């Protein structure tokens, strides 16, 4: 087990290094002169020269990469060119939104997708099965941004003045604000301390923050705003999970040991839940890990449509305004997150399937 974990950890180092290299290279290859892009077309050559020297953009490219790696390892992503603020600070403000949205979507996809797949497999070749699978096929074929817009139209306009009304954009209703838990508890903190950044990160997870400060009004409002984007974002992974659960469960249900279990009189439900599902869930777990990549990509679109200030939208805005440090840092964080999640998924096999441990 330990050996497997160590081997798996070591094997992800080259990939992480590769990601660093790619993000660095991409940001450097973006066309256009960063100086005139940031300081404006009227920037004099002297001003530009100082600007480039200050940011180390005149050094050889490998030195720039060395400086970059050193900084990243120390958690320093530089200053955003557009906002003139540390990127890490912007990340702390924006990341929680995206995490909240992705987690909500993933949870929805899992708690709806797996039962749907199970239902479909258990009612194999019946109308239920056909309807579920047709739904799943349509689900994987819909563009996220279109579904989001249509949901916004349906719930914010058509269902206006009904209890089903949902807000089409934003994180909180205007006038309402989430009070950070450290303020609510009356803690006094130095604003530039690393601890503050960390606490701020958690305070920006509105759902978490409102629960621990017992602010139910904000919690309700946050959840209400989260429903539409989460539903839009969850559709594709939900459909993929449902299909995978179905096919995997069907395969397991055809095995000899299931027949043996049935033959010795184990109740139908126990056969499905205890004998079949456990073995069938292994490929489903893999798919859940892989669909996170789609979620993070989809977050760019969902955040744009629903006007949410998350990482995805920030990244997109940074690309259009050539904000190198933000592009580098955010792409890096997202790709790292993706690699780490898939690492966790791989390691979870050892818990789900003892055979992996023995290999």
């Amino acid at each position: 087990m330990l050996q497997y974990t160590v081997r798996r950890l070591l094997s992800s180092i080259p990939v992480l290094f590769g990601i660093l290299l790619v993000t660095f290279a991409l940001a450097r290859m973006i066309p256009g002169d960063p100086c005139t892009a940031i300081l404006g077309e009227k920037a004099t050559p002297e001003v530009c020269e100082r600007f480039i020297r200050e940011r180390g953009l005149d050094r050889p490219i490998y030195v720039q990469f060395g400086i970059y790696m050193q900084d990243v390892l120390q958690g320093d992503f530089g200053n955003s060119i557009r906002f003139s603020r540390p990127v890490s600070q912007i990340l702390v403000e924006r990341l929680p939104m995206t995490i909240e949205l992705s987690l909500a979507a993933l949870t929805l996809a899992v708690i709806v997708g797996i039962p749907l797949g199970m239902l479909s497999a258990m009612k194999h070749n019946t109308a239920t099965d056909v309807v579920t699978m047709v739904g799943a096929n349509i689900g994987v074929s819909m563009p996220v941004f279109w579904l989001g817009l249509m949901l916004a139209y349906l719930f914010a306009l058509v269902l206006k003045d009904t209890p089903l009304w949902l807000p089409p954009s934003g994180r909180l209703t205007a006038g309402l604000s989430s009070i950070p838990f450290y303020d609510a508890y009356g803690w006094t903190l130095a604003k530039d301390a690393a601890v503050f950044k960390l606490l701020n990160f958690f305070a920006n997870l509105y759902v978490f923050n409102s629960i621990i400060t017992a602010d139910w009004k904000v919690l309700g409002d946050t959840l209400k705003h989260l429903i539409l984007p989460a539903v839009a974002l969850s559709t594709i992974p939900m459909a993929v999970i449902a299909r995978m659960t179905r096919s995997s469960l069907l395969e397991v249900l055809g095995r000899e040991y299931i027949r043996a279990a049935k033959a010795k009189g184990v109740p139908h439900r126990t056969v499905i839940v205890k004998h079949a599902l456990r073995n069938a869930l292994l490929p489903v777990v893999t798919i859940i890990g892989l669909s996170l990549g789609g979620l993070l990509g989809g977050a760019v679109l969902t955040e744009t449509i629903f006007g949410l200030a998350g990482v995805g939208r920030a990244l997109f805005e940074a690309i259009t305004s050539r904000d190198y440090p933000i592009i580098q840092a955010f792409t890096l964080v997202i790709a790292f997150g993706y690699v780490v999640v898939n690492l966790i998924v791989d390691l979870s096999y050892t818990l789900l399937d003892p055979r992996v441990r023995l290999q």
Partner: protein
Amino acid sequence: MTASERVVAEGGRLDAEALGGKPTSLWRTTLRRLFQRRSAVVGMTILGILVAAAILAPVIAPFAPDQVLIGLEEGIKKRSGPCIHLLGCPADQPEHILGVDGNVRDYFSRIVFGSRFSLIIGFTTVGFAVVIGTALGALAGYLGGWVDNAIMRVMDVLLAFPSLLLAIAIVSVLGPGLINALLAIGIVTIPAFARVMRASVLSVKETNFVAASKALGAGTVRILLVSVLPNAVTPLIVLGTLEVASAILSAAALSFLGLGAQPPTPEWGSMLSAERNQVFTAPHLVFFPGMAITLTVLGFNLLGDGLRDALDPRLGRESKVEVV
């Protein structure tokens, strides 16, 4: 029926067919199986309509995709909803079955012409990825050693990025535009083909018929093209069809973000993007292009699933394995 019983039954059926004296090729069998699956038939029908629309676009569409109708038709208003005379729209109003967009162009004509773009997008990106991906995968699998390591590590890094994000990043380097978006999606799609090809090469490399070819003096390229590639065609076709679907989705997303096709190109994602702020006032302008994308992607997905089941009898009818 258990898996083993099924195989026996299947084998029995095939034997009976063989005894009937009719030689059945792999492709004929595949086609027959494909037509037996309802979902595959639905997929093929959708794609058939799409191809017909793309080819016959100038005949089907009542207007040119970029023709502004101001001055041409009396009383025409921008963003007016669908008007179909058969469904009760007053006869004195000009007929536009999917309405009129913000620049007073016939939306139906634009959607019909858009089918050309979606097909071009799907096939060029996947074509590009297939050629480069299979070549890289074949080299990695056949040569092994450091070549294999180097190629596959690069593929791992590409796969470590969520594909849409990587495509966005690549387009930001190349600059927005349809061609660059296609290139970006093509690059992002390469690893999937490289992996499948490499796996096929590895499984075929050690077989006797490859050893025999080698003994007869065949070179690496010949062995790869004649002995290895035909054995990898099945998974490549299935993957290719499914990747066309996701390429169309990604291209629409890039266009939606303003990084792909630019107005006035009648590309569905770009049309949707242009009218997205009008979703509350003119929902039909958002609904129809999205519907067109969904149906097209659905067509390719259904065909891909059908092909997978038809080409691989070992999988049986119900067990689908996600090719990722």
